[in-house]
């Protein structure tokens, strides 16, 4: 049915391969032999969603259950959406080409806040009511997980439940409960009441939020006995025993990250104070080199990928990286497979390591000092000195690199114009370093690219209490950055500030934002992570129409005692620890990384009191 209609429209749209499925490694089952249909939804385009490792893991994990068929669903691009609406094609699963409205579950992954309107659009395209309260017994359960689920409050009214933390175990527990629901004939509400008792499952409808006269939250309290006052995220204690896919769906079309991936570790030992990932994925856990080598080799053989990436928040913090590379280099060389190591920290990039990687392939050198001055790097706890940056660059230049890309952030707490100038000055000193080296690549010029993002305060970070810079202030700083004298060898890149401030509103928002998101979607907002489609005016009108002041969420400093919208969710790190860290930031004081010393962040309670960092 849908397939016939698709035939009519697919040649009218860009990149039809996004919408047909049928790729190598995609799982097709007999619908009459499965009892639970699950749609893994990524609220963005195919090429973005297909790059996401978490989705690949959960897709394979669920499909290993013989009675479950998990399919992939992405947001159609605007041209395809118009064709679908015109032809009456509802949102469908890529494996079966059947409407997801008839599935049992839709599970969305929440990777960035700007995807929220896209979620509503996908539900609407599916023919499913967007508000949870409007959904009946026949409708699928609408669930979500991923990093933004650490503060799901702005979208709480659209979802039936959220999965907090790592999904490998809790997803299966939830599916198991759903089997019982079908067997026992439970109502939707009965199912959700029981789901709320599973650790890590948050059912927002079972909580009531009370607001004070100042507009702040007074309290968040459960309204049913099944709902716990605080819901704690799930983690996998032993990563060597956790499920890892032996195969990926290998797309036909080019996607953003088109390669095999293995997950080296979870969590981060660093504690950079702006970084949400650095806190919400704690505690730090590593996989054994043998496990990783096996994961990587199996995946490469089954997918035919010629590149495998060792992913994590900070792969150079992997304590046995050398041992792992020693295991991987022989077969990867033999089979003409490239190894890639993203997100290497400056201080982890030793000459020896660079040499090992260079055996395989040479690409650009990228790292993230995040701030231009030492004072600012101390404020954000990016424990990195200028000398460390220089020694890395020196090694890279000596090894033949001529392009360096640096990531920075502006708008972080206590920042002054001097810190902005510091970004350019640091880049200039790297340029000077290059020309001072007699062993630099002969006859070649150097390029230092500085990409300067706008800081967004995020929940569960020490900076969750901080005021975000206004759009005007960020634009002034961007201008100041460009006005700081710099050589042509330095390229300065930045991004429009209004998106960052909106992201800030949504990141630290509460349930009163749901009507705003709804109104913005109604006005046409979707695929907003893409600059081509983002329109600030739609959002401004939505805020005005709902009588919500975005500055209350973005630009207001929170008292340490204020009840934050996510305080009833526990991601391991204690609020007291985050307060200590914020106070230290204002004293320019740094905190040791987890290998150097424990700061009692609280996350070790998730593993029964044992911290797994090798010291």
């Amino acid at each position, binding site marked *: 049915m849908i397939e016939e209609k698709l*035939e*009519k429209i*697919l*040649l*009218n749209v860009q990149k*039809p*391969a996004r*919408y*047909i*499925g*049928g*790729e*190598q490694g995609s799982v097709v089952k007999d619908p009459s032999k499965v009892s639970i249909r699950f749609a893994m939804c990524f609220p963005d385009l195919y090429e973005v969603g297909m790059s996401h490792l978490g989705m690949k893991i959960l897709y394979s994990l669920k499909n290993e259950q013989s009675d479950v068929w998990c399919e992939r669903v992405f947001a159609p691009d605007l041209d395809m959406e118009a064709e679908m609406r015109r032809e009456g094609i509802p949102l469908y699963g890529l494996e079966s080409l059947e409407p997801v409205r008839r599935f049992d579950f839709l599970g969305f992954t929440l990777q960035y806040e700007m995807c929220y309107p896209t979620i509503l659009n996908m539900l609407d395209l599916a023919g499913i009511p967007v508000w949870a309260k409007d959904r009946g017994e026949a409708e699928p359960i609408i669930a979500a997980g991923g990093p933004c689920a650490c503060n799901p409050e702005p979208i709480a009214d659209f979802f039936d439940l959220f999965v907090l933390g790592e999904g490998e175990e809790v997803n299966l527990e939830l599916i198991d409960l759903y089997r019982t629901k079908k067997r026992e004939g439970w109502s939707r509400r009965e199912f959700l009441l029981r789901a709320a008792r599973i650790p890590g499952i948050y059912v927002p409808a079972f909580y009531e939020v009370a607001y004070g006269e100042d507009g702040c939250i007074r309290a968040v309290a459960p309204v049913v006995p099944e709902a716990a006052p605080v819901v704690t995220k799930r983690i996998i204690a032993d990563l060597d025993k956790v499920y890892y896919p032996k195969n990926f769906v*290998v797309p*036909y*079309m*080019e996607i953003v990250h088109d390669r095999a991936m293995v997950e080296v570790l979870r969590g981060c030992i660093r504690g950079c104070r702006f970084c949400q990932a650095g806190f919400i994925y704690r505690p730090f856990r590593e996989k054994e080199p043998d496990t990783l080598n096996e994961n990587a080799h199996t995946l490469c*053989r*089954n*997918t*035919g*990928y*010629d590149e495998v990436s060792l992913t994590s928040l900070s792969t150079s913090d992997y304590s046995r990286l050398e041992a792992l590379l020693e295991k991987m280099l022989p077969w990867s060389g033999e*089979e*003409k497979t*490239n190894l890639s190591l993203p997100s290497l920290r400056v201080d982890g990039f030793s000459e020896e390591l660079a040499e090992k990687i260079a055996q395989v*392939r*040479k690409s650009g050198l990228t790292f993230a000092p995040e701030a231009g001055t030492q004072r600012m790097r101390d404020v954000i706890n990016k424990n990195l000195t200028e000398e460390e940056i220089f020694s890395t660059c020196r090694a890279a230049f000596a090894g033949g690199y001529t392009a360096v890309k640096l990531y920075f952030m502006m708008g972080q707490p206590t920042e002054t114009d001097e810190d902005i100038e510091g970004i350019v000055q640091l880049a200039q000193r790297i340029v000077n370093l290059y020309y001072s080296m007699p062993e630099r690549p002969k006859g070649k010029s150097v390029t230092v690219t500085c990409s300067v993002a706008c800081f967004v305060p995020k929940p569960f970070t020490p900076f969750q209490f901080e005021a975000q810079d206004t759009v005007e202030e960020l634009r002034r700083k961007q201008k100041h950055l460009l006005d700081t004298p710099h050589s042509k060898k330095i390229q300065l890149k930045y991004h429009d500030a209004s998106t960052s401030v909106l992201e800030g509103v949504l990141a630290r928002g509460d349930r009163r934002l749901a009507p705003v998101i709804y109104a913005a979607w109604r006005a046409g907002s979707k695929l907003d992570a893409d600059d081509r489609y983002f329109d600030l005016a739609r959002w401004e009108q939505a805020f005005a129409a709902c009588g919500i002041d975005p500055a209350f969420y973005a630009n207001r400093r929170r008292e340490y005692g204020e009840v934050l919208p996510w305080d009833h969710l526990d991601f391991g790190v204690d609020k007291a620890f985050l307060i200590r860290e914020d106070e230290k930031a204002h004293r320019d004081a740094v905190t040791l990384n987890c290998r150097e010393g424990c700061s009692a962040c609280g996350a070790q309670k998730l593993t029964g009191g044992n911290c797994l960092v090798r010291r």
Partner: protein
Amino acid sequence: MYDVRIFFSKTGRARYISHLDLNRCMQRALKRSGLPVVYTQGFNPHIRNTFALPLSLGYEGETETMDFRLEQELPLEEVARRLRESLPAELFVLRAAAPVMKPEKIRWGRYAIEARGEPQAVRRAAESLRDLLAQPELLVEKTTKKGGTRQIDIRPDLRLESMEEGEGSLRFTLLVTTGISRNINPSLLLDLLPGAGKEFSLRVRRTAVLTEELEPFC
């Protein structure tokens, strides 16, 4: 080193795979198959595979070909089987053989075309097709590689082999100039049919790739 030519079909959903994507897909399939494929030399080695003729996005193909080299000789049935098992069903490896002809020998593509839809619109399309092919000259705009357009006469590039009309359906077989020196996309003709893609849908399938003497390319 041993040259191998595989013959494969590209049907169903696989017709939405672009030529560039097909190339990448085949390289990965060759890698998955574990066949001892020859790689290019250099710092960033990749598999040396070539296609005699690209197939337009949206068209099905019954006998497409791809060439590559093996480090060692293997039974051709085994080569075909291993690659077949490494590909999705809609990219189906028919057989493997040692290449006989060079791609320069290709002169014609045979296309089976089916128009389906509103009966009146299909009837009009059939009339229009007859009219167009009755003309001594058929001037169409062709986009050049530089992005401009130029007028060309495609009448000598088209030979109607058969035509069959039914209620709401029109099937016809066309020989179209195909090859390295001159390559005509049947869409240049099909776009001239009024209502194409709107009042009726078109399904295009390349059923054979032929030489000047109408021998199958092998």
